[in-house]
């Protein structure tokens, strides 16, 4: 993990061959002047012998990776991607233990995980987001703040016509329906994103249940639960409010649910679209750390959507064979290439947003430096 003061901008379109040193501090990251860029070419190519890139982890990332299997082998005949699920925690622990070469994770590694495993890197390969949906016959558009949502989930707001909700939605006739908050069962990356948003906007939540993949939810009599994003859609009966990853957006629309506009840090109400998600990434990328562990929750920016996250691939930067290292570098570089794996036809399976386009050069150069260091 080099932490020299090296700012720089990599040429966006040619990320496959050019990369720059990562930045150590937020202040120097987005400015390219001053320090000398040290381009570290990412060596990619077809390994001489066949390499199977085993992957385990995030089930949110899984459909996207499955889409990539065929086009990857078509381009690099000796690289086979073998993705499987298991959850983000399993992805990280498998990558640490060497059970799989790649670990998919919705969450970035923690400082503790980095210090225990200094050779580990987390590489963002796509961007995801989470919507807050509701089922309220007669109402299709609602504005909500993280503070109000936190009060719903802690049980202090129980009816849809509560003054706190009405105050945000003048002109909307709200029924006196009881609110049924839905949560994800067990441990879930979606729960982590959602409770991070609540913690950022409601101090009682931050000091109480807090952010986490599995949370002790405050007791709400009408609370329901589901075990997946599609399960949340199915369980969202009239009166319900649910947090649902963008991968299930079309399912939620088909089921007749409506998506809430969430208040961002600048005070504007937004829904997750490629442009509002991109705005959040742009704002966050201004302070991307050298280890690429970056929360995109509740970012600055007038148009930024508040619940956005990188989808990460966790890799060990020290590999036992040069072919494995080459295959990993090649796959990661190709996966985030807008002409490679990050084409909309592959990303659309999950409604992911490509790193490309909206992500500033500093992110890409930092990512490329990490990939170049995989040996």
């Amino acid at each position, binding site marked *: 993990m080099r932490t020299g003061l090296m700012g720089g901008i990599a040429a966006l379109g040619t990320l496959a061959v050019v990369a720059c040193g990562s930045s150590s501090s937020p202040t120097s990251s987005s400015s390219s002047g001053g320090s000398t860029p040290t381009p570290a070419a990412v060596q990619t190519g077809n390994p001489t012998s066949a390499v199977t890139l085993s992957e385990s982890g995030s089930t949110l990332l899984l459909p996207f990776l499955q889409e990539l299997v065929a086009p990857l082998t078509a381009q690099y005949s000796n690289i086979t991607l073998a993705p499987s699920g298991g*959850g983000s925690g399993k992805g990280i622990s498998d990558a640490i233990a060497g059970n799989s070469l790649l670990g998919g994770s919705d969450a970035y590694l923690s400082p503790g995980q980095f210090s225990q495993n200094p050779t580990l890197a987390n590489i963002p390969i796509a961007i995801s987001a989470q919507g807050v949906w509701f089922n309220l016959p007669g109402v299709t558009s609602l504005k909500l703040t993280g503070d109000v949502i936190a009060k719903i989930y802690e049980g202090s707001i129980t009816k849809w016509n509560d003054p706190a909700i009405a105050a945000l939605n003048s002109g909307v006739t709200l029924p006196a329906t*009881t609110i049924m908050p839905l949560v994800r069962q067990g*441990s879930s990356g979606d729960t982590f994103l959602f409770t991070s948003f609540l913690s950022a906007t409601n101090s009682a939540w931050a000091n109480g249940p807090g952010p986490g*993949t599995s949370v002790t939810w405050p*007791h709400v009599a009408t609370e*329901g639960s589901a075990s997946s994003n599609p399960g949340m859609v199915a369980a969202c009966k009239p009166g319900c409010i649910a947090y649902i990853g963008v991968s299930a957006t079309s399912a939620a629309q088909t089921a007749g649910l409506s998506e809430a506009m969430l208040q961002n840090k600048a005070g504007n109400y937004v829904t997750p679209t490629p442009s509002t998600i991109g705005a959040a990434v742009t704002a966050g990328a201004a302070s991307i750390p050298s280890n690429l562990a970056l929360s995109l929750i509740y970012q600055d920016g007038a148009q930024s959507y508040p619940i956005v996250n990188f989808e990460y691939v966790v890799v060990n930067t020290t590999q036992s064979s040069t072919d494995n290292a080459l295959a990993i570098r090649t796959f990661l570089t190709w996966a985030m290439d807008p002409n490679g794996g990050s084409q909309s036809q592959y990303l659309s399976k999950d409604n992911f947003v490509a790193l490309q386009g909206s992500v500033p050069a500093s992110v890409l150069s930092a990512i490329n430096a990490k990939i170049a260091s995989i040996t």
Partner: protein
Amino acid sequence: MSTMSARAGDVTAGRARRRASSTELSRWDKVLRAVSAIAGIVPTGLLVFIAVIMVVAALPSILFNGFSFFTGSVFNFGNLYATTTVTHNGVTALPHAAYGVWPLIVGTLATSLIALVLAVPISVGGALMLSEVIPRRIADPLSVFLELLAGIPSVVFGLWGVAVFGPFIAAHVYPALSAIGHVIPFFKAPVGVGQGLLTASLVLTVMIIPIVASTTLVLLKRVPILAKEGALALGMTRYETARVVTIPYIRTGIVAASLLGWARALGETIAVLLIIGDIYSVPGNIFGNSSTIAAWIASTLDGALQDFTGMGVHALAELGLLLLAISLLTNLAGRLVVRRVAGGVLPVGRGV
């Protein structure tokens, strides 16, 4: 495992008898002795091995949480992204980590006991019906069905509970049941959509009925016909015969069969996980969402794996140890009950 090895031992002994030579006989005797020794050690050794491994894996959690593990109601792996850790009794965990599993103890005992209370009368009644009332040529195929029912994978029960049974009883049965709430407050509640404590208990009931019923049926078939005929000859009705002769003869066996069913209900994971809602709380009413020890281990392991201090996995190991202890305790309690029930008041011999 022991039965298989023992059977292998029988075969060995048989071969030994066929071969007449006395030197060979003693050699095969030695083999037999070795095989049975291994067969005897393996099951005991396995239990000790598992218990030791569980204790070792749970030890940091036992040190960290102390007795509050059993009484607390908050389960939180702590702040994963903190730059510091907290140390207590020499073991490290994440800041704000809290492991109190009281809601899981309640959920586990509540679901399994409700299931047991409902399943035992139905199972014994059904077994009596099959063995004493229905003609044999109809009863025999029916009892085969009972055994097939015991073999249905639990995930199938879970799916059925989620997709069919839960929504149905939530719409048609629970509203009537919640009327009891005027008498017993625990029944008064919004009935929800069919997931929760009661639905999980009912599905567990269906799952353990075949276990208890088929075991009871086997026992009923072993009641001596002479005793029953004697009772009938004395002018007893069929009901009186069952009450005075048949049931007392097998009641220790019924307790044992119920324990088998209870053990199954305690450890059942996937069906309960799918149905109970898996919310970490002591439900305020019988329709509320809850969780059990087994379901919680399965659903939170992924979160525990992200805890770099390892305390999350240690805490789940202590949960597993707790489940093991509960299973052993219920088994022991059952044995005590059996001993008391079997205490010499039986009119005709003793049951299994």
